[in-house]
């Protein structure tokens, strides 16, 4: 795996890399080079399978971290390609021309995080949330409890007990 990372570093700018297991490693690359690197990995290095594609919201740094997990069926090695993009007006290049199923992920991230993928098929159609007009709900600054209380008629009387205190009071009432 280390050899592969060195080979990528010679061709493309890699800002960060880590070998987490003998068969798994991670690289962080700049946003502009991502599609180039994925194309090269798919066509030259036989990373033919996009296993998953996730987004993490780093609110404090004002960034989204996108992870493209690739798998090589010949050597059974995993390579996670990470890219950091700005939270404000988040836009990313679509990769649906490389892996067709990526457009489903991209639809979901458009809906849940508000990341735009121009050119991706059906990216503006609602997928899980029908008729949603609030802010994207997976963003960490979205207060889901407040939204729920304003929208869904909470039933009064919900209490929370600390289990330790509650059981102590229940089992040993003379001590408390």
């Amino acid at each position, binding site marked *: 795996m280390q050899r592969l990372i060195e080979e990528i570093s010679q061709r493309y700018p890699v800002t960060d890399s880590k070998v987490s297991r003998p068969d798994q490693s991670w690289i962080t690359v700049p946003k502009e080079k991502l599609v180039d690197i994925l194309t090269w990995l798919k066509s030259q290095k036989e990373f033919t399978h996009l296993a998953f594609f996730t987004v993490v919201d780093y609110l404090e740094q004002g960034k989204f971290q996108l992870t493209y997990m690739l798998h090589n069926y010949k050597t059974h090695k995993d390579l996670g390609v990470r890219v950091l993009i700005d939270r404000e007006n988040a836009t990313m290049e679509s990769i649906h021309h490389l892996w067709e199923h990526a457009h489903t992920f991209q639809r979901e991230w458009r809906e849940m995080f508000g990341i735009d993928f121009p050119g991706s098929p059906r990216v503006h159609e609602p997928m*899980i*949330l*029908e*008729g*949603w*007009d*609030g802010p994207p*709900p997976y963003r960490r600054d*979205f207060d*889901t*409890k407040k*939204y*729920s*209380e304003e*929208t*869904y*008629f*909470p*039933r009064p*009387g*919900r209490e929370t007990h600390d289990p330790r205190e509650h059981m102590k009071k229940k089992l040993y009432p003379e001590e408390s």
Partner: protein
Amino acid sequence: MDEEIKKPYEEMDIDELIKSQPTDPVLYCQDLPKPSKPLGIYMEKFLNWARANSLWFLGFGTGCGAVELRPLMTARFDVYRYGIAGRPTPRQSSVFVIGGYASVKTIKRIVRSYEQMQGPKFVIGLGSCTINGGMYWDSYNTINRLDHYIPVDVYIAGCMPRPEALIAGFEKLKQLIKEGKAEGANHYAENFEWYKANQKKIIKDWNMPDYNW
């Protein structure tokens, strides 16, 4: 007699073709639901007895609680001996079992299925999620109280309730029907505006036929 000879479709131009089509067939009921009047004390008592002993529920797994409906039909629990049977369509069923949490996307289908059911119709809310949201109480996309959207006759608490609890809930519903207290459909018709206002608050795009919307 019939002087107007119909042209074959191939020879018509586009205007004639449009004119020859039937205009706007109404394929669904546009009337508001009406409360039904009782047919006299003794007749209604007899009907309630009959209704209580053939509860056909809609087999529409709306949430994860629907897994508890399957064992009801197996040899161990065998609800057919109580006159309870699952039906595949809302038109044939009289009990709607809401199995657990209902997201906004599901509540849309629930409302539509409930309105398609023929009266008298009853609703059983299964699991904590229908009562106060359960473990999804602070979720952005699941409702908290089912009785704000459709009238509920019996709630079965639990996460998930066992099939025995479900049978007990059905027994409770039978008791309510025999006493003439399960008037959810009439309540829905009388407070239609209130229910619709609550539904419209969360359902922003109604992408199905304009069914009383």
